[in-house]
């Protein structure tokens, strides 16, 4: 039986910082690299880390072991040139249907849940070490992206309050990211109302935003863009265009493309922000991750998702599953060695995307672009589920 991992977000950040200061061991060595480094030295380290992780997961998880056997995968495959492509993957619906939390020896851990598709949610457990590594990765990525700051800011969460989150991965991530900068004030837009029902407090969010604008300190917006768009629209009706103080940022967790049809076929989120606020496109830094692969891909000022050095991405053709080249659209496969408490090394998502070699921002490493969700029964994400509260 897993014991709840009793921690505060602040203590997690402290332990993550300790790991970053002294990254030892084949997996932690990845933290010594710049967050977006993908050169040959990094590749050797990543390969070594994946080897360590795979050996562990093949031993611990009978399902993964059997899968590897069926796909004729052995650790020796990692010595070949296209080693990453040979690693067997687990598709995300398997993690929604089956609970792997019983496979790992009991210990302390935290359960995180995906938003679910048709009522099914992935439930994964992060043991203590996996959780600290995940948080360390988050800290490193945001810091190396220049998004950690010393100036205190107001925090507007367009997502769940802690008590209303029910383990939703997005809520924890938002709060952790918010702690990278001192907080002057905070407000959660999705919370319990007086009747104990989760409600979207839109009017209150609008008023809070107005107070923050008046006060003048930078504002950081976290959570779902869909809700933020509604707040911006309402704000404009009441107070006019939002004049964000300098150094304000939107650090969102996706959740607007699914609602693009609400806004019309020609909707462009950047144009929307420009029309409703003083925010430039470079101030909107969306992120991409999954509960099954909780390593954040964060946008740069050119709004491109940089692949962090804790992950590798392979794009696969949906019919043949053949690995595709740069700029070819296919299913996104995500690899990471950071997590040990569920079979997480290699996850095949049902998202379409493509990789490009470089970004105009000048940071090293490839970038990932998303090209929609795959499958007839489109996956719901947190934003769609939360939309039911509007």
């Amino acid at each position, binding site marked *: 039986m897993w014991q709840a991992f009793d921690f505060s977000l602040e203590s997690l950040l402290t332990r993550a910082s300790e790991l970053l200061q002294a990254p030892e061991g084949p997996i932690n060595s990845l933290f010594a690299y710049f967050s977006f480094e993908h050169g040959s030295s990094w590749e050797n380290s990543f390969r070594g880390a994946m080897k360590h992780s795979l050996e562990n997961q093949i031993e611990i998880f009978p399902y993964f072991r059997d899968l590897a056997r069926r796909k004729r995968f052995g650790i020796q495959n990692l010595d070949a040139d296209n080693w990453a492509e040979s690693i067997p993957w687990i*598709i995300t*619906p398997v993690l929604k*249907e089956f609970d792997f939390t019983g496979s790992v020896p009991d210990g302390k851990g935290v359960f995180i849940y995906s938003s679910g598709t048709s009522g099914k949610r992935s439930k994964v457990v992060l043991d203590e070490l996996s959780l600290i590594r995940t948080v360390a990765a988050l800290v490193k990525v945001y810091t190396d992206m220049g998004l950690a700051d010393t100036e205190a800011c107001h925090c507007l969460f367009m997502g769940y309050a802690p008590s209303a989150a029910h383990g939703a991965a997005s809520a924890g991530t938002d709060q952790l990211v918010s702690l990278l900068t001192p907080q002057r004030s905070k407000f959660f837009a999705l919370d319990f109302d007086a009747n104990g029902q989760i409600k979207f407090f839109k009017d209150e969010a609008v008023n809070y935003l107005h107070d923050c604008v008046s006060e003048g300190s930078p504002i950081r917006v976290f959570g779902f863009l869909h809700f933020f768009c509604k707040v911006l629209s309402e704000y404009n009706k009441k107070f006019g265009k939002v004049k964000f103080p300098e150094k304000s940022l939107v650090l969102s967790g996706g959740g607007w493309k699914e609602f693009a049809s609400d806004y019309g076929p020609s909707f462009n989120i950047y144009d929307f922000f420009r029309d409703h606020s003083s925010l430039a496109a470079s101030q909107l830094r969306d992120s991409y991750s999954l509960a099954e692969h909780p390593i954040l891909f964060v946008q740069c000022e050119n709004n491109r998702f940089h692949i962090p050095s804790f992950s590798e991405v392979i794009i696969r053709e949906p019919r043949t599953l053949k690995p595709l080249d740069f700029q070819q659209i296919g299913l996104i496969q995500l690899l990471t060695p950071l997590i040990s408490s569920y079979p997480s090394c290699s996850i095949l998502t049902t998202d379409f995307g493509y990789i490009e070699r470089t970004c105009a921002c000048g940071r090293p490493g490839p970038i990932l672009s998303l090209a929609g969700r795959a499958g007839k029964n489109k996956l719901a994400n947190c934003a769609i589920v939360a939309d039911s509260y509007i």
Partner: protein
Amino acid sequence: MSYKIFKTGHTYLQSEPYSAVELKKELENVKARYFLEEVVAPDQAIEVLGRIAALMESSSFLATQMVSCFDNAGLSKFDQSYLIRTLRAYLLPSNLRARWKRAFGVDGNISPAGFVAHIGASNTILGGLDGLIDGIISGNFNILKLPKPDGGLPGLLVEALFSVDTTNVLKGNIFAFWWKGGDKSIELTLKQYLDRVVIWGGQEAVLSWKRDLAMQTQAIIHGPKYGVGVITKDGLDSAKLPELAESLAWDISRWDQRACNSIQGLFVESKVPGDQLNQFLKILGNQLDAMANTMPPIRDNDDCVEILKAREVATAEEIINGSLVQFRGESWTINLWRRWSSGLIPSCLNRYLHIMPFVDLRHLARGLYEDRIWLQTLGYCASPDELSSMRACMGKIGISRICPFGRMSTPTGSDPHDGNYDLRLLTCVMSD
């Protein structure tokens, strides 16, 4: 984007979708003339519809236009040409008269119900067309929700009807336009006028349409269906395995399982020895491969992802719980379950079949009882002695059509649908 409106025998093109205000005005106009006009006799309607069948035979232009409606519909070329031939045969006067006779028996005092809306399923290209034909020959005023703004296949056939109806027999009784499903202003307006609404769709569509119906409105529902197959030991013992496999492969491959009569689950009597079943499955696999040559599946990326997801979840089930064995070909998948007690296991379609064991027909019927709302067609391989009890058992759980394998996907045009004739439900029989 342009929006086609079909009414009073003309096709109109608008730059905006038809509005609730326009709809109300049109329905009031129809209501005003409702009592002034004679009811169109079935024979007259059938004769005009027959002209469309003749036009489909003679006009390569119409055939080409119909084929273009199948773009991106996921139908193989084989299924496309079969659908066109089936539609033509459906519209033949001989078929429509047979349909009328089977529905009503002898002629009687039969009156139309009045205003009938036909709401087609969004994932089919027919879009409620077969219901519309019933609505036409029964003399009703028919409102058809088009599957897309340009009319799609139903729009094409309505236009064809307008062109052949040179004596204005039916033109005034058909009104077709597109609206976004769930548009409350349109749907609430419409619901005030309806005597019948024929709904083809999923649970959400059905429940949405049943809500707020007026007192006088009856809903005729054709929801999603799951075709089942049954193989008994006696049936398998006396079957010629290659022929049986070919028939079953045909039923699995037709329409890539998208039709309401498509088989998704096959129940095999548990008395059948494992090696006999395995031998049959090997032959079935070969036949499915052969079908892929005759009827190559048309799959887009989303279809491939659905198959991938289903296969991997089943593989995980196989590894973790040992509850099934999976067989795969390039174009097909079979999950052979070791145990089954109750319930349907949905298939992702695209030639993906679940095979479950059953003890006897009563066990099978009990196990499927809670899911009877989804049942319609049953294909069988059984001995003649077993058929009577099969009909009795399966009739209790909503099976409305039983046939040998090879015919599941090809009901005749005069067969009832979901156990009844919409013709009866779209009319009133007046007694003396």
